[in-house]
């Protein structure tokens, strides 16, 4: 069985710096981490591998080759192969163009399932998995909290999706695209001591546009169907306000405010 995990390395949103002139994130300024939902996707794949050691787990990302060390960290915890789709031609892709690139690579692979996150914490569109579903003609479901591991081995995906009011169990056949959420709580194992020191560079493959063969206008900024033209940090509108202290007088003020407005 081959499981492919789609992963994105994202800035730690809290500490990232943003280039307002060029509308891009200054990635070097931010510490990159594996997107939280994707952590769960990889962790689930490794659980299957733990049950069936012959399973091959491949992690695929479209990103700058700078993410190589992050990819190596995934190999250290048990992923067999890392693939980085990387080419200057891909830079500036919106989700449509990103899906084109990922889709062409994936259409040439043999896999039993695609495991992804539901959404990333930076772009946060949730588009990529569903768009890949359309381009690869596969069923795709988001918001997955739990996958039945025993049925999985029989090529059956039975999984739980939790919504506002209910938990729904679905069942379908592999191959399909299963997108997990961080609420699933699947956790990555720790790297063994030997893996911490090992060199994994041989198991990482960088795939460029030479192999994928897109025309320049099909991908990247020029192949995109949406464009970020401006970004701004939100400013708050000031309200007429009153500051009181959390003492008897303050509580009384709040109480009278609530009573005046009809809340009590």
């Amino acid at each position, binding site marked *: 069985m081959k499981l492919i995990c789609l992963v994105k390395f994202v800035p730690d949103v809290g500490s990232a710096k*943003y280039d307002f002139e060029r509308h891009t994130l200054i990635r070097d300024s931010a510490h990159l981490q594996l997107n939280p939902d994707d952590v769960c996707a990889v962790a689930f794949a490794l659980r299957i591998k733990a049950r069936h050691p012959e399973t091959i787990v491949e992690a695929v990302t479209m990103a700058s080759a700078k993410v190589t060390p992050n990819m190596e960290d995934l190999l250290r915890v048990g992923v067999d192969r890392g693939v980085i789709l990387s080419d200057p031609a891909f830079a500036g892709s919106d*989700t*449509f163009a990103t899906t084109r690139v990922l889709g062409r690579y994936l259409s040439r692979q043999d896999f039993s399932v695609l495991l992804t996150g539901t959404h990333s914490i*930076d*772009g*946060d*569109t*949730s*588009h*990529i998995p*569903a*768009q890949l*579903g*359309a381009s690869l*003609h*596969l*069923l*795709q*479901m*988001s918001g997955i909290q739990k996958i039945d591991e025993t049925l999985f081995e029989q090529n059956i995906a*039975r999984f739980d999706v939790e919504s506002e*009011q*209910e*938990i*729904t*169990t*679905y*069942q*379908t*056949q592999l191959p399909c695209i299963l997108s997990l959420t961080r*609420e699933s709580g699947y956790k990555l194992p720790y790297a063994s001591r030997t893996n911490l020191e090992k060199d994994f560079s041989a198991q990482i493959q960088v795939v460029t546009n030479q192999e994928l063969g897109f025309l320049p206008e099909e991908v990247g900024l020029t192949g*995109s*169907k*949406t*464009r970020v*033209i*401006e*970004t*701004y*940090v*939100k400013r708050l*509108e*000031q*309200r*007429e*306000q*009153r*500051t*009181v*202290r*959390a003492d008897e007088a*303050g*509580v009384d003020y*709040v*109480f009278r*405010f*609530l009573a005046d*407005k009809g*809340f*009590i």
Partner: protein
Amino acid sequence: MIRCLIYIDPSETESSLDLIEAARQLHGDAFEVTGVLCSALDQTLPNVFDRLMLVAYPANGCIDPAQVADTMQALHWKDKFQSILIPATPFGRMLAPRLAMLLGTGLVADITKIRRTDEGVVVIRPAYSGSLMACIRFIGDGPMMMSVRPNVFRDMVKEERTMRIETLQPRTNGVGIEQIEVRPKQSSYDIRESEVLVSGGGGIAKSFAKIERLAELLGGKAAASRKLVDAGVAPRSIQVGQSGKTVNPELYIALGINGAIQHIEGIKGAKHIISVNINKDAPLTSLSDIVVEGDADRFLDQLIRRIQQHKSE
């Protein structure tokens, strides 16, 4: 005539109808609007569409976004819409990207604002977990597609239209997904429906029960910031903010909430805000009608006692 297509999510009918207001902001007053419905509703829809397409799915509705995407694609081929609007519900978020890919068009996620400029439409959406707003333009021949955050384009009075109802055969049988079981979750409520919300953040993690008590006394519901949800103190369903819900209550009492922009994004529509914080300059306080400077736990005790006293008088 400008044509707009709107997907009606049976689990969020109201928010789906609000997309007509989004369409108005997108196209001006003259446009024709078609709604697509793939499931039986337990209420009748008001006459707010020019045309309502009922897709003939089995009675319990459709669970495979691929089926709906295929059907809407066929509809678009026939009618050539200028815009396709889909509510950003869990189903809508799976449907919209699929359909955009089939149509080879751009999709903007989770929009909160629409601006018409001389050079065309600009839509605005939060990114980086809501810390940044992005203005986005569509490139290419369209249709313009967007998923729209529920509860953002509220429209109280909707224009009455002569609604034609047509039925539509689903275009594919999908790839075969079965619903095995649906289990209700215990004690859930929708914070968006409450006029009064008492909400807690990192400064009050230990006193969440008191928040519920105050909410009850004010006839409202408890809510929480992301901090408390991530800490496991409150369920995700009551999270307010960019990654949670957008709420528009009459009264929002924020206890020990710093007010990251992500949180503020979700409460801008609140009529009155009272915030309690040991730091009177926390970001949320600038939005508040009343800022109570001090310990939130103590404040809760005092206010609860004061209201109880009043009720027993």
